[in-house]
């Protein structure tokens, strides 16, 4: 592999953001036909580096060479012209357009001359869809050019993004956290495609914070921490523990330490729940389950199988069509969010920036987002600022939120610290049920470790926990029982100790459990 020529080289890349040195003299290179994984926690500087290579940011110092020539990349268009393509974590596709239309978007003319664009040029759909078919065939991508993108499964949408890059003649592909939205089986399929691509000379930069998949797919691994490259290795020379230690800068415990659960009375009883999503389609289709005090019920499933709507229905945020929700014996079907919190719900929401926090508010205000109206935080309709201050300082200390002061806006905190603010707020009041939806999404290993410990601690104190996560590892290591959700229904509920990753993956993809 070392004989292959270097196609992309970054030397001494430095990028300063206000208050953060995001890239500090970073060196990185990519050889033709290899998969070079870039591993690091959130905030390590991976995305900054890739955005510089893709022309979205300009480096303060350092140089970029493509095929030996020094380049200045001022925009993604420059990057595309030099054969660099990127598949973002959040797809840049228009759901109501067909695959072909999405692929043409921004390159509507003859794909051989991206530059000459006239707004009045006729769209040659037929030609492009033939090219899509050719690529599909050549790389085993299996994409129907005439399908509407919104109808396609996430894994296929990702392939559309890859075809889009190839159509723009990319021979260097940057994949940003590509497996975050995939089932284990879909991830396997992606890995097959990546191998197919590299075999034909495409070079791939694979960005991830997941150790297992990096070890599985990469030829070389570069680890970043706090804006610097802290090591380069190959899968043959290293293992998960070593990589984790490099990433975090200390030894980490990868699995969660917990005693067997001692479940007691039923806390949350859900019966025959039906809920519609924003498009008015039935997203939760007759779900029933029970969560008992002192246990963690994990809901496994690929994103978009009704988990979001389920969580919203169980917290008063979404209308329930039929069925019942009972919390500690009280019927809370279609009750207000406040009725839920007052009955003893703590809710760690899926989207921390949209639901969990007011980003422009101080930490102190965010710490009372659900409790601001009651004593001691308010007296006769007037906020008690001294109490809010004391409360914030105590929670910042107890939950180890890293901030210079309680009066920093929540939006200025890192993702991990934002999540700690939410966890602190929700778990610090007397609760009977915790609903944690993707509680560690996008967080660094240290924060994940911390939040997992807090969740297990709640369980051990006799609180019922409903954990919803797309991370199979998280579900498997935290849950006492696991329910698998697929197409709005619970396929099966199993003992967490008696199930394998592979089995869960199959159920998540829609396989029916054998009825014994």
């Amino acid at each position, binding site marked *: 592999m070392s004989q292959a020529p270097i196609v992309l080289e970054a030397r001494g890349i430095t990028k300063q953001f*206000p208050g953060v040195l995001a890239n500090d003299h970073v060196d990185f290179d990519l050889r033709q036909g290899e998969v070079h994984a870039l591993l690091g926690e959130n905030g390590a500087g991976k995305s900054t580096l890739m955005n510089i290579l893709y022309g979205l940011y300009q480096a303060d110092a350092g140089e970029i060479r493509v095929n030996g020539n020094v380049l200045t990349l001022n925009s993604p268009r420059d990057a595309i012209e030099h054969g660099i393509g990127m598949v973002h974590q959040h797809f840049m596709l228009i759901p109501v357009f067909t695959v072909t239309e999405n692929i043409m978007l921004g390159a509507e003319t003859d794909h051989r001359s991206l530059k000459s664009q006239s707004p009045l040029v006729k769209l040659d759909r037929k030609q492009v869809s033939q090219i899509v078919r050719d690529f599909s065939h050549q790389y085993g991508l299996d994409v129907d050019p005439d399908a509407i993108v919104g109808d396609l499964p996430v894994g296929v949408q990702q392939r559309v993004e890859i075809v889009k890059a190839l159509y723009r003649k990319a021979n260097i592909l940057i994949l940003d956290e590509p497996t975050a939205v995939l089932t284990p089986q879909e991830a396997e399929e992606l890995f097959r495609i990546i191998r197919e691509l590299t075999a034909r000379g495409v070079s791939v930069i694979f960005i991830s914070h997941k150790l297992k998949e990096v070890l599985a797919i990469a030829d070389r691994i570069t680890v970043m921490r706090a804006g610097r490259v802290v090591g380069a290795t190959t899968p043959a020379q290293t293992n998960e523990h070593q990589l984790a230690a490099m990433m975090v800068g200390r030894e980490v415990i990868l699995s969660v330490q917990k005693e067997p659960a001692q479940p007691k009375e039923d806390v949350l009883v859900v019966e025959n729940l039906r809920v519609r999503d924003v498009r008015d389609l039935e997203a939760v289709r007759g779900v029933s389950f029970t969560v008992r005090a002192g246990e963690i019920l994990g809901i496994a499933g690929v994103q978009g199988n009704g988990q979001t709507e389920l969580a919203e229905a169980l*917290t*008063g*945020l979404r209308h329930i069509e039929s069925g019942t929700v009972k919390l500690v014996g009280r019927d809370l079907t279609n009750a*207000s*969010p*406040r009725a*839920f*919190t007052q009955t003893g719900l703590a*809710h760690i*929401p899926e989207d921390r920036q*949209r*639901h*969990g*926090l*007011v*980003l*422009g*508010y101080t930490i102190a*205000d965010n710490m009372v*987002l*659900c409790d*601001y*109206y009651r004593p001691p935080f*308010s007296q006769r*309709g*007037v*906020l008690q*600022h001294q109490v809010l201050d004391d409360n914030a*300082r105590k929670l*910042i200390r107890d939950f180890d939120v890293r901030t*210079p*002061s*309680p*009066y920093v806006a929540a*939006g200025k905190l890192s993702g991990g610290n934002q999540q700690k603010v939410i966890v602190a707020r929700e778990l610090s009041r007397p609760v009977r049920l915790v609903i944690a939806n993707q509680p560690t999404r996008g967080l660094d290993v240290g924060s994940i470790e911390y939040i997992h410990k807090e969740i297990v601690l709640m369980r051990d104190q006799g609180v019922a926990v409903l954990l919803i996560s797309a991370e199979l590892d998280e579900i498997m290591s935290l849950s006492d029982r696991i329910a698998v959700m697929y197409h709005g229904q619970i396929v099966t509920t199993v003992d967490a100790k008696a199930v394998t990753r592979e089995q869960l993956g199959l159920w998540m993809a829609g396989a029916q459990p054998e009825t014994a």
Partner: protein
Amino acid sequence: MQTVDDRKSQSGWQQVLRSAFNAMLVPFLAIFTAVVVGGVIIALAGGNPWAAYLGLAQGAFGSARAWSETFVWATPYIFAGLAVALAFKGGLFNIGAEGQLAFGAVATAWVGYALPEILGIEIPGILHLPLAIGAGILAGAIWAAIPGALKAYAGGHEVINTIMMNYIALNITSYLLNGPMKDKNPLNVIARTPEIAEGARLPVIFEGLRVHWGFPLALLVALGVWYLLWKTTLGFEIRTVGANPDAAKYAGINFRRVIIVTMALSGLLAGMAGAVEVTGLNYRHELGFSIGYGFDAIAIALLGKTHPLGVVLASILFAGMRNGATRMQFLTQIPVDIISVIQSLILLFVAADAIIRYLYRIKAKEDRLVLTRGWRG
């Protein structure tokens, strides 16, 4: 790294001053730039910008009388500006201040002149004045609560509905002033109400000057709005719904109720602008007296960064410009219309603050103001 307690000692006034400086930087530079550009326009038209601005300043702040007139102008600006600013804080764009103000004025005028006749008694001032102003603010509040309810329960966008309700309010007002409420005095040809009773009038502060107690009242109300927004539970709810409606729902805030209450409070303040103009200045409601206050209020709220103190300062500035313009024209023959140009430029630079940030190389520090949201917001 500093500990939490180190920072506490440094917070307080220093932090307040720093954030006030940051908040006022862009508006101040916007005014400065607009004045420079306005000066160039005056010079291009053959005038002398120095003389023009000197005349403007004299007319606005050059004498006790000038100050008095500036404060007279500023009074409705402050009330209406607070109305728009409060709605902005709740994530709502109240374009309907004009209509709410008109209804406030009509209701106040009616209580002022008709109520004593109907009751057949002279109402003592201690009762009549609060009744008259109370009727005005109630009318404004109800008129604004309607688009609030439409937004909360039917998803009707408040921008569209407040505009439409302006037309309804202004046309009903026109009908009332030309018909049932018209001054019956045979000499009167104007669409206006009779004069309100003596007891329903806000007294002037100094004999011989027109500035009346409505101005100090406006300052007091500005203080009240600040207290409401930042010190009370209701204010917390209003700001949360404005800053992040999804988080507000998550937090258990009854966002429908908060939207209606926010609009009602906004309309209350706009209605107060009308009520105070009637009780403190005109002693009647006359068709056309208020044209534009409700719209200038949007500019004032934006220039004041939707903060009550900013609204007061912006109101006095706009009032001074309006008031000084006449003297400027008298001294230099430069038409008063240039003032509208400068005011528009100020607003343009505040709204499109990227221009100012680029010109003066200021980095964006604060979150951008959300002027309005989509239908589903």
